[in-house]
């Protein structure tokens, strides 16, 4: 990294840091809302069946309580007529009701059946305890195999929400089989990965009230997703509903889909009560009801020639989508697009399916489908190296994609390919592996091993997604002398507003403290697209840079003509005073819209072409130590090298990498969401375990910068890639240590005990 000349590239303190550390930051539940009522949700307790109606305990005093069931609302009337639009949480499909109506079908445990509001939370909870939903259970679909068998049909006629087929280097299955048959050996495995809870510190929280328009504020990643869903729910126009993000205590994808549901509930209740309503989930409810990472089954075959080169890759990916479609097709898309891995292969077939089950819907979680398929292919590559007797890192070095190579979709890699830099960075620091055996502080014998993983992650939306989205951002010089960045990207702790200020300040030649980034609200900021897909720095940051550059050029051109000297602030103030080119707010605004880099071609029908504008690249080395008395796994070393293009703020980037690494290590050896009969049985922080600092070693984080020519200062994505690979590195290290293959996550001590008992 060369010394930065402007704000970009400096580890400036987070804009929101002091408020969060001192407790001054106001989360939704901290905000004063005059006359607010507290909303709670009556939920189903069966995985599949019908909602026959709601019984209210006649002994309870209902006088201060409002109970809403879907049959009490005027659907179809629209907001203007005092009613509602459609009873759906509008995302991709409209299959998920916001509230299951009496007589309607229940498709998962913890599905919302009725809403309750009361002046105090205690009263609302007491009222909920006095409600009993009548339910009739039907046979449920609880596994991927059940779903594919389709004896019970939940969606379409085969329970398949979405499927994809990628073919590279062959026309049909017969041609594919010929390529695979020609392999000298085939490495084959089936890999299972479990659900994972995002466990953001601030639970789901939302409020709604009516003040001319319908206002919704809360903890969320994507204000315009909520806005879109509410327009359908309310049957109203874009200006009739305003959605604002409040300070958000973590998201990790968990506040991508579900806030639309919660916002719908708040809106229904505020309409029934005639007062503001807020809903803040308890932790157990949040874990039981909201989205988690898709459980997955990935079958993977790797055909190798006599020299160990890959001649064909065959992958079959199935994701458990849960009860409704939500965003599963998009998650699946990313999963299949990464399933062949960053390795040279002339022939690739990837089939992907997301299927319906009676689990609560699975959804977005950091990595968004890629961690599941990365686990499979990086286990496979390790097994290939093992079968060939080649050192695992050397095997990857030999076969990884380089510039000029093509991916599974035929995307020819040209720029910003971090392979060699990543491989070199890991090799440089690796050092000798740990001693095979030893003893720990308990006097217990230990065995040790080392594992690697190498992987890539497409930055930004898939295929033509960014073009379809056409995200916008504005940079505005305002009459009060401030410069504002207006974007709908939310800061949920990842540093978005800090890097926006750095990028805008750099372009304008101002200190970052001169830039303000208002909290996103749909009546203030343009739709920059959702805060997902590792796109905020690369795509929206790029829009901010372009808007700032355009604004500066406009002001300088005017100043040159008018003979006004000084820095940007002085010239903008003079231009505003002169009334030149002002918008409706008396400000100088530049709004730009996403434009794809030249030469991007993607075919949704055949799933070929440029799947992503560019990829991030990463390598991970993990050393493990297994206690032979307890089978507990200690991760004693974790080196993670990640190519981010350009670190706009290196400390924030390192924080993203380290946080993602810990989340990935947790998924590998600790985190297990347990379902029984469709219900989460460990819905508490006590039993739904996530790592503490005691569970991770000092992380060795290496930032690699292979610039993306079309990103701001070369930046590409960083948010998700650290989640993709460490789990495979851990599994590979465990196989190295124990000589037993682990093809699932989480790999718990109980699993190791069972595997060793079986092996002996």
């Amino acid at each position, binding site marked *: 990294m060369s010394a930065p000349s402007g704000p970009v590239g400096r580890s400036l303190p987070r804009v929101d840091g002091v408020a969060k550390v001192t407790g001054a930051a106001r989360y939704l539940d901290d905000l004063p809302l005059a006359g607010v009522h507290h909303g709670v949700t009556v939920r189903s307790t069966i995985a599949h069946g019908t909602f026959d109606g709601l019984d209210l305990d006649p002994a309870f005093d209902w006088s201060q309580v409002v109970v809403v069931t879907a049959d009490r609302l005027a659907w179809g009337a629209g907001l203007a007529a005092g009613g509602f639009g459609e009873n759906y949480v509008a995302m991709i499909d409209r299959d998920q009701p916001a509230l299951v109506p009496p007589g309607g079908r229940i498709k998962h445990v913890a599905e919302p059946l009725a809403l309750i509001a009361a002046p105090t939370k205690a009263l609302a909870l007491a009222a909920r305890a006095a409600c009993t939903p009548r339910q009739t259970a039907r046979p449920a679909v609880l596994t991927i195999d059940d779903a594919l068998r389709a004896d019970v049909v939940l969606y379409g006629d085969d329970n398949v929400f979405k499927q994809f087929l990628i073919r590279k280097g062959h026309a049909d299955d017969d041609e594919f089989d010929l390529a695979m048959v020609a392999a000298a050996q085939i490495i084959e495995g089936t890999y299972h990965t479990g659900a994972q809870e995002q466990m953001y510190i601030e639970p789901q929280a939302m409020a709604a009230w009516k003040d001319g328009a319908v206002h919704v504020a809360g903890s969320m990643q994507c204000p315009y997703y909520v806005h879109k869903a509410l327009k359908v729910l309310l049957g109203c126009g874009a200006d009739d509903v305003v959605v604002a993000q409040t300070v958000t205590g973590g998201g990790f994808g968990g506040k991508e889909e579900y806030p639309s549901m919660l916002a719908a509930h708040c809106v229904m209740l505020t309409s029934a009560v005639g007062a503001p309503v807020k809903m803040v989930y*308890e932790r157990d409810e949040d874990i039981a009801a909201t989205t988690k990472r898709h459980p997955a089954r990935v079958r993977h075959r790797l055909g190798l020639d006599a020299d160990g080169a890959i001649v064909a890759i065959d992958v079959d990916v199935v994701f458990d989508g849960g009860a409704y479609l939500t965003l599963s097709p998009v998650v699946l898309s990313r999963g299949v697009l990464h399933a062949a891995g960053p390795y040279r292969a002339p022939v690739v077939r990837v089939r992907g399916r997301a299927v319906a089950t009676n689990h609560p819907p699975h959804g977005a979680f950091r990595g968004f489908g890629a961690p599941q398929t990365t686990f499979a292919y990086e286990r496979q590559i390790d097994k290939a190296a093992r079968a060939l007797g080649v050192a695992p890192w050397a095997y990857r070095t030999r076969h990884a994609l380089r510039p000029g190579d093509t991916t599974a979709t035929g995307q020819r890699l040209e720029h910003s390919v971090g392979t060699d830099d990543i491989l070199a960075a890991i090799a440089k620091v690796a050092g000798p592996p740990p001693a095979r055996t030893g003893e720990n502080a308990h*006097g217990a014998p230990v065995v040790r091993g080392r594992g690697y993983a190498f992987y890539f992650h497409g930055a930004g939306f898939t295929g033509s997604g960014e073009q379809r989205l056409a995200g916008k951002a504005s940079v505005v010089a305002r009459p009060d002398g401030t410069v504002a960045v207006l974007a709908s990207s939310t800061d949920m702790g990842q540093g978005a507003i800090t890097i926006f200020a750095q990028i805008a300040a750099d372009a304008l030649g101002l200190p970052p403290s001169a830039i303000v980034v208002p909290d996103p609200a749909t009546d203030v900021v343009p739709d920059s697209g959702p805060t997902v897909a590792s796109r905020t720095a690369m795509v929206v940051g790029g829009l901010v840079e372009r808007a700032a550059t355009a604004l500066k050029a406009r002001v300088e051109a005017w100043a040159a003509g008018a003979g006004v000297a000084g820095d940007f602030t002085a010239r903008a103030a003079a231009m505003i005073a002169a009334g030149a080119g002002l918008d409706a707010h008396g400000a100088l605004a530049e709004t730009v819209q996403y434009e794809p880099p030249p030469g991007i071609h993607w075919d949704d029908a055949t799933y070929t072409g440029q799947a992503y504008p560019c990829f991030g690249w990463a390598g991970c080395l993990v050393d493990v130590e297994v206690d032979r008395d307890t089978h507990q796994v200690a991760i004693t070393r974790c080196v993670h090298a990640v190519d981010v293009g350009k670190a706009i703020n290196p400390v924030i980037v390192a924080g993203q990498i380290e946080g993602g690494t810990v989340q990935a290590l947790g998924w590998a050896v*600790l985190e297990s969401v347990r379902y029984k009969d469709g219900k989460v049985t460990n819905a508490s922080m*006590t039993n739904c375990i996530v790592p503490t*600092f*005691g*569970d991770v070693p000092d992380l060795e984080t290496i930032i690699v910068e292979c610039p993306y020519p079309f990103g701001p200062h070369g930046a590409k994505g960083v948010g998700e890639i650290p989640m993709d690979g460490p789990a495979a590195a851990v599994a590979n290290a465990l196989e190295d240590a124990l000589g037993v293959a682990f093809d699932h996550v989480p790999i718990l001590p109980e699993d190791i*005990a069972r595997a060793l008992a079986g092996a002996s």
Partner: protein
Amino acid sequence: MTAYLRPTDDAHAIALRAAHADYLVLAGGTDLLVAAHHKPVPVGILDIAGRFAGITVDAAGARIGAGTSWRAIATSAELAATWPILPAAAREVGALQIQTRGTIGGNLATSSPVGDGLPVLLALDATIHLASVRGARTVPYHQFCTGYRTTALGADELITAVTVPRPAPGTYLGWRKVGTRAAQSISKVMAACALEIVDGRIATARFGVGAVAARPIRAAAAEAAATGQPPTAAVAAAVAAALRHDITPIDDVRSTAAYRLEVAGNLLARFVTNAGRTQG
């Protein structure tokens, strides 16, 4: 509404307990506040936080007031010098905040099968001191836990203290907690031991195990297998095998019966071989 009483001194606490046997006792509050989320609202709360606290050590042993926090136990140099497994167990109770609020008496009264402080007290042959308006009495700790979350504590009684004798010279003390993660976890298996070695043989053995039965228990069969034997690998294996007669682990949301059975045996076996090495 829940009534709330806070006694002015220890005697007052005992008097109030007699008058309000139906109240919940709040010592550190760390169990009570978790229960507040899912248990019925108590009739009343008797807040004895700060009462019966303090550690004293003399020639006979240590006396730990029931209201002593885990943090005070964890940081006691006097306990660490003679009973190092007590501070070691205290350091693995919850998080620092829980250690600071939570008390040894609360752990004893709640008597959860996964109570982190309990196996150590079994291994150390602790005695529980109880008081009521009827008078004071003592109960050996291994007779105190009567079943799943039930104890010998009378409805009008409070726990006032725990005493532990000084271990005989040459006693090996061991402790290990196997939790769901490295810190702030609930135990899957816990074990503690006191193995008195005389002339190269285990003269007396006490094994306390937790999370493998309805209550924290002494492992009698394992103790019998160890007693009179040298602390060798073969005896260690026999102890692990014998433990299967003592415990009844279950499958639950945190672990499996098979894992608990195997690991509890491994922990006891390791205590025996570690004790043997201290003889080296």
